[in-house]
């Protein structure tokens, strides 16, 4: 059998994967049989284990050799022990029962005269400690901490103790004195030893409160003595001059600095009251560190980043917080992409605490939008949406639109994210149908129309439809049509479906506003519809829009030739193989031939679409009650169901009727975002059940009823409650959560008194941007005073709890 080297060479020389596999399997089998041979010499065993470790790296099964590691460790030779311990650490883990076999060897090796053997024991113990091993071996680890003067062993013993304490928290009371004692021996306090002390302190701080730990006071008094020493370490390392062994790009031991900062952070959180006398000292050191660390190298940034995290975890004073945000902003302005990444992440976490300070660095944040890494872009976007306010709204929106128009449509997710959030934001701020916001969406549509979803296009339709100023509508219609009808080089991309769909719709709705403007004539509009009708003959969605537009346009133009063309267009679809289009065409043909005054009355522009807030509030029951109504209406329309009123009859019954006539109502319906095709789709639910009504994705924000009571408010979230009903034995209470800053993954826990039972409905949304509202229904049954406790938590740091008592008794 060849050496490890030959084996590795052979494996690497394998020409195909299959060859490599067979080589490995063969060798693995060989090793297995050889190791079974009791008379195999130790040196041969060692060779086999070496090969086995190579197989381990390659991902092969190695369980059969676990006992062999112990055999090697038991040998007296250093070479064997070294490999044996390595193999044990790689092949075993703390769950294995085999570890009991290891205990005795470890116990004897930890007192081995060669310190490197002791070090390997500590290392192995640190990796494999189970609770039992921790209890068996802690006295030996303690002996080292007590008597050894060897820095190399001390550092490892501290690390090992840290792991032991995690495994068995009670042992913290054994080890805590050593964290102080070590500082009285400055000659052994190397950075390595200090790292170990840090680790042990962190373990202590972690376990001391989580268990019924009975030695809290002793540990706390130790901690109190350690804190000044730790602060000393920070001060010293941070201001120390060059020391080549610890220097990392001009910074002295960032590892120790960061580790110490973290330890102090844990201590100041866990032993808040005990160490409060050191608060100001810590703060002043942090302040000094900020100014001391000057390099822009990664090592320096790592320390600054840790300082920032410390400042925000400890809720330090304002000046330090603002300083921290400035550090993060400096990170953003730098070149290093990783630093930018952590800065954006941190800013996202603290933006709710210091919105103004973050706000001042908006320029740097915006610049990150143009970073080549999408994860940076995404975070920058999220952050920007967090800091938009009235004063910078137009400017910011402008930047965002620039960003998506320049993105070349490569990252569709980002585009959609931006557009959806923009629309939601417009909606929440009630500026959705203002002139400039409309101009913004048209800009988006112009360059990005092909990437937008049906829902977004629908939303844009509604925005235009709801514009309060007629002149705004007119401007938009004109802008759209002139670009669409332009005979020059096509300005609008051929693939821009969204744009075309909206143009078609605009022709139907607002042709009368713009007819007569340069380029906008009966002929050009009719031609545009006809042209699209030919190109997109198999796109049922667009054809649906074209049909409606053709019908409506026919009532707004006077050129008989054009009207005839439109009639032909509609008529042609009476033969369409698609049932929905066909029925539509048939009905439109009937309408088409009605006298002009009747037609005009029916084919007015759509009314303002009023968002039915109730829908959103209890969408559950409404959704159900909504459908039958539609089916009825459209059942009438299609005469599927014998009904009292036929649509055509209704037309003649009420000539010149208002635009909210039954029929038109069914056209506009409650879902005008999909234009006229939506209701027709639902009518034939039986035949086209695969085309359910799509409700726009962008949810309209819930409204909080004025009678709702504010029961809690914090910097991140406001909570309202509204008693919907309270009868004998049962009550329905609706909770509203209004986000003040963005909330991700909100989790709500509610508890009621023991005499009552609670049924918690689902929350309407778990992620919110500032201003958005989520709602949740509570049904409480039982008796007694109505009261509850609410616990809120979210992934981005909300963690609060409060109680509320109502005047009502069940």
């Amino acid at each position: 059998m060849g050496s490890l080297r030959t084996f590795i060479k052979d494996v690497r020389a394998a020409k195909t994967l299959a060859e490599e596999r067979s080589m490995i399997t063969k060798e693995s089998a060989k090793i297995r049989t050889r190791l079974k041979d009791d008379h195999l010499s130790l040196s041969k065993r060692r060779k086999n284990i070496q090969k086995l470790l190579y197989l381990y790296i390659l991902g092969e099964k190695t369980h059969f050799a676990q006992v062999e590691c112990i055999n090697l460790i038991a040998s007296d030779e250093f070479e064997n022990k070294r490999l044996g311990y390595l193999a044990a650490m790689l092949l075993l883990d703390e769950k294995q029962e085999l570890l009991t076999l290891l205990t005795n060897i470890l116990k004897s090796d930890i007192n081995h005269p060669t310190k490197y053997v002791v070090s390997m024991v500590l290392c192995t113990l640190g990796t494999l400690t189970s609770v039992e091993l921790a209890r068996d071996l802690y006295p030996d680890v303690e002996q080292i901490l007590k008597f050894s003067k060897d820095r190399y062993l001390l550092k490892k013993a501290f690390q090992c103790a840290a792991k032991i304490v995690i495994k068995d928290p009670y042992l913290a009371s054994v080890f805590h004195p050593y964290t102080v004692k070590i500082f009285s021996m400055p000659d052994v306090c190397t950075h390595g030893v200090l790292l170990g002390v840090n680790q042990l302190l962190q373990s202590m701080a972690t376990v001391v409160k989580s268990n019924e730990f009975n030695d809290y006071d002793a540990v706390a008094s130790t901690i109190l003595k350690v804190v000044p020493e730790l602060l000393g370490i920070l001060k010293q390392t941070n201001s120390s001059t060059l020391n080549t062994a610890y220097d990392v790009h001009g910074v002295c031991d960032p590892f120790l600095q960061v580790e110490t900062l973290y330890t102090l952070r844990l201590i100041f959180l866990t032993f808040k009251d005990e160490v409060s006398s050191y608060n100001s000292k810590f703060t002043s050191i942090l302040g000094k560190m900020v100014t001391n660390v000057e390099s822009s190298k990664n090592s320096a940034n790592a320390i600054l980043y840790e300082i920032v995290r410390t400042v925000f975890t400890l809720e330090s004073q304002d000046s330090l917080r603002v300083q921290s945000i400035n550090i993060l902003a400096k990170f953003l302005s730098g070149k290093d992409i990783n630093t930018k990444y952590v800065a954006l992440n941190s800013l996202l976490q603290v933006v709710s605490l210091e919105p103004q300070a973050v706000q001042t660095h908006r320029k740097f944040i915006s610049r990150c939008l143009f970073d080549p890494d999408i994860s940076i872009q995404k975070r920058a976007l999220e952050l920007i949406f967090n800091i938009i306010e009235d004063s910078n709204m137009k400017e910011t929106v402008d930047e965002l639109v620039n960003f998506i128009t320049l993105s070349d449509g490569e990252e569709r997710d980002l585009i959609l994210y931006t557009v959806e959030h923009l629309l939601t934001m417009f909606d929440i701020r009630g500026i959705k149908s203002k002139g400039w916001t409309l101009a913004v969406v048209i800009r988006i549509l112009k360059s990005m129309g092909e990437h937008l979803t049906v829902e977004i296009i629908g939303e844009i339709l509604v925005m235009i439809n709801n514009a309060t100023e007629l002149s705004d509508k007119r401007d938009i219609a004109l802008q759209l049509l002139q670009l669409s009808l332009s005979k020059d080089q096509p300005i609008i991309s051929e693939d821009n479906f969204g744009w075309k769909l909206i143009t078609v719709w605009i022709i139907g709705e607002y042709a009368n506003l713009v007819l007569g403007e340069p380029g906008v004539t009966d002929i050009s509009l009719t031609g545009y519809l006809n042209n699209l009708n030919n190109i997109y003959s198999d796109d049922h969605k667009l054809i649906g829009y074209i049909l409606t537009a053709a019908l409506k346009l026919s009532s707004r133009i006077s050129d008989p030739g054009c009207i005839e063309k439109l009639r032909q267009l509609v008529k042609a679809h009476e033969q369409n193989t698609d049932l929905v289009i066909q029925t539509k065409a048939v009905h439109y043909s009937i309408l088409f031939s009605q006298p002009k005054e009747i037609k005009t009355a029916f084919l007015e522009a759509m009314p303002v679409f009023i968002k039915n807030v109730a829908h959103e509030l209890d969408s559950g029951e409404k959704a159900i009650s909504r459908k039958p109504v539609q089916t009825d209406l459209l059942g009438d329309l299609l005469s599927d169901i014998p009904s009292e009123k036929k649509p055509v009859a209704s037309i003649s019954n009420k000539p010149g009727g208002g635009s909210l006539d039954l029929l038109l109502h069914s056209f506009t319906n409650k879902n005008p975002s999909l234009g006229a095709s939506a209701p027709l789709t639902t009518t034939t639910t039986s035949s086209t059940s695969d085309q359910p009504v799509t409700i726009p994705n962008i949810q309209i924000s819930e409204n909080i009823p004025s009678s709702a009571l504010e029961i809690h408010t914090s910097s991140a979230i406001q909570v309202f409650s509204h008693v919907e009903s309270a009868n004998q034995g049962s009550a329905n209470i609706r909770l509203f959560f209004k986000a003040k800053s963005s909330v991700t993954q909100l989790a709500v826990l509610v508890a009621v008194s023991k005499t009552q039972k609670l049924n918690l409905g689902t929350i309407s949304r778990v992620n919110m941007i500032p201003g958005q509202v989520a709602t949740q229904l509570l049904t409480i049954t039982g008796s007694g005073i109505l009261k509850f406790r609410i616990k809120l938590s979210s992934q981005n740091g909300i963690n609060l709890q409060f109680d509320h008592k109502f005047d009502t008794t069940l």
Partner: protein
Amino acid sequence: MSKIKYLLLLSRQGKVRLIRWYRSYDQREKALILREITTTVLSRKPRMCNILEYQDHKIVYKRYASLFFICGISPEDNELLTLEIIHRFVESMDRYFGNVCELDIIFNFSRAYNILDELIMCDGAFVESSKTSILTSMAIMDSVESNDSLEKVLS
């Protein structure tokens, strides 16, 4: 702090060159992590940042010549410092092997593991920040080992 969950050395072709788990994952989890990380990290473009979110934790990686050094770290860990830890590992190997290359690590993987053990212990805690200390201990251990075998030959 510095709770490295696992450290992984991958070649550009996705071959594992060194792997060390600092948490007890079972076989299935290990296989999943290994597979997913391999595809994710290898497909990263050069100008992307070296930190990414994965499962409930973060991955920090850095490419040195033909090798990717990949660390899984806990959420409270300092990503920038992890890059320094990776760099310190590379630096230590570089000095130990003298201008280290992928082949050194392939053929002397147990030495690479030994160096790693001097740097990182227990649950992935960083142990020694002195560059010289690691090399000194490595040198002494190597000499103990060769003395041992020398004595064996002589006896």
